[in-house]
């Protein structure tokens, strides 16, 4: 066991750096599961979480897909929201005032329908000083244009990242889709194209059928699977990507309890995002932060860096 050192507060140091964004702890919400921050503010102290990640933003407001949009499955849920969002301009007007007052970094998740649109949104987000970094979504399975086509082909992924990089003066996190044969190929492509960090994974494409009506349970027919059901897949992919790239990796997928997050940190994720678990328990992220801290104390570690990437093979 490592020798025990003490931080000034006597508590372990949970802070991490992701591509130059300083986080007081490695826990943040996954895009699309925390609205624009405000929605959950009555239920948890949002200043305690490492960062706030917004719902995916696009150039123009987007209405999203027809209903039904969600279906519960075994230990998970399917969603086909279709990236409904207020658009960049209304985000600045109506959502930013709340975020501005919160003492924690804001990461804006975004996407485009076309390559030019990706560039344009990146440019607009670049101009907003309150945004600490952006997360580029090239992985949404629920929209026809954009989204996933950029995330499944290494050349297309590199192209969009290169363009966004050119239009952006902020740390760039690229979020990958698991719906590929080899995720490391895409990871390397976006790293080379200028990604400062990688988050992995987005939802897995799935389907559910109502046996009574014999119709798909989602109007969109298929949707993105999230929740505990996908955790082992996410963990495997994070492990692979950590080996494949040098940039920091953020682990996402099925994290519900502190131990789930700790698994991701051990395989080398420098931070984690909590998604579906917020719906089940709005306090989930706080419990996870406290659980990580307790784990470090129990293990006699005083810095989270001693835990990150400590997987024994």
């Amino acid at each position, binding site marked *: 066991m490592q020798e025990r050192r003490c931080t000034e507060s006597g508590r372990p140091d949970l802070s991490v750096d992701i591509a130059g964004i300083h986080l007081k702890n490695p826990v943040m919400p996954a895009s*699309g*599961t*925390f*609205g624009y921050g405000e*929605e*959950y503010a*009555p*239920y948890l102290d949002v200043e305690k979480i490492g960062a706030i990640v917004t*719902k995916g933003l696009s150039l123009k407001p987007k*209405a*999203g897909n*027809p*209903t*039904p*949009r*969600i*279906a*519960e499955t*075994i*230990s*998970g*849920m399917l*969603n086909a*929201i279709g990236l*409904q969002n207020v658009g960049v301009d209304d985000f600045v007007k109506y959502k930013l005032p709340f975020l501005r007052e919160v003492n924690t970094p804001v990461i804006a998740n975004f996407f485009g329908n076309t390559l030019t649109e990706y560039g344009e949104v990146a440019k607009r987000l670049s101009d907003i000083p309150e945004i600490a970094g952006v997360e580029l979504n090239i992985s949404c399975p629920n929209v026809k244009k954009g989204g996933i086509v950029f995330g499944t082909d290494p050349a297309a992924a590199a192209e969009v990242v290169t363009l966004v990089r050119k239009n952006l003066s902020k740390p760039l996190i690229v979020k990958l889709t698991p719906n590929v044969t080899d995720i490391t190929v895409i990871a390397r492509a976006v790293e080379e194209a200028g990604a400062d960090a990688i988050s992995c994974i987005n939802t897995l494409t799935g389907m559910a059928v*109502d046996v*009574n*009506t014999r*119709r798909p349970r989602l*109007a969109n027919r298929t949707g993105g699977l999230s*929740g*505990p059901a996908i955790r082992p897949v996410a963990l495997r992919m994070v492990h692979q990507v950590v080996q494949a790239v040098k940039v920091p990796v953020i682990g996402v997928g099925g994290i*519900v309890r502190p131990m789930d997050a700790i698994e991701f940190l051990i395989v080398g994720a420098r931070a984690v995002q909590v998604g*579906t678990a*917020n*719906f*089940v*328990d*709005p*306090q989930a992220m706080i419990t996870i932060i406290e659980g990580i801290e307790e784990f470090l104390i129990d293990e006699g570690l005083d810095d989270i860096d001693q835990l990150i990437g400590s997987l024994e093979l």
Partner: protein
Amino acid sequence: MKNYKTIVLSNQEISPGYFRMRLLTPGFSEHARPGQFLMMRVQRSLPPLLRRPFGIFRTGFMPGDCEGMEPKEYTEILYKVVGRGTSIMADLHRGDRVEVLGPLGRGFDAGDPGREKILVGGGIGLVPLYMLADSLKPAGSVRLLMGGRTRDDILAVTEFERLGVETYVSTDDGSLGEEGFVTQVLERKLTKYPRAMVYACGPMPMLDAVYRICRKHSVPLQVSLEALMACGVGACLGCVVKGAGHTEETPRYLCSCKEGPVFRAEQLEWTRLGLEDGYCEGCKS
């Protein structure tokens, strides 16, 4: 708005397949408005993964267990056992732990005090109407038209009567009250009280019929809708319904957990509302 880590005070079957559950919720009633709902985590372990939405039937105070003990503030829900979550709920006992998030959403609008108040409930859709009746009663007469498939689907009518609400019961099979749909009763009442306003909650086909009747009689209507929900707080956008003017080319969705579940009829796109989508459990029955 709070997440209550709380316990079940009581849980009884009130009619075959329908239960009444009381939850210990200190401070809840102060914030709860008629038509609001809560999200309940039915057990601490998973699955089921997601919380279940339930209307608030009423809030109140129960005397403490022994003399001199503080009264217990409770929230009461009525629910129908339909699937996994509600089956687990049916097995809960006094003292069992649950979590409830609430009160959530926008409730009913009290409306014009000069108008007759007609409440239309279909089956378990009666739930949000009790607190509404209670709040409307001091301002004048309130009538409840309650419909169900059989007598087993007619719930809590005596509670409404105790409030001084005039109640009219109809069942599809005639096993209790008048035989036929609750909407027939509504037609008659609106002919008699042309200056009424209507509040309705029930299965989608019933709401659709109520909407057509109210439009024909030019009376204002508020409806409480059911939609599949994951978060209940406006974060996931899973619960949307079609707003007025919605078309496929210009989709306009309203968030039913945050902007609803109660809507004024004119806020919604009725021609395309839900019926063909089957997002409403009631449509199947």
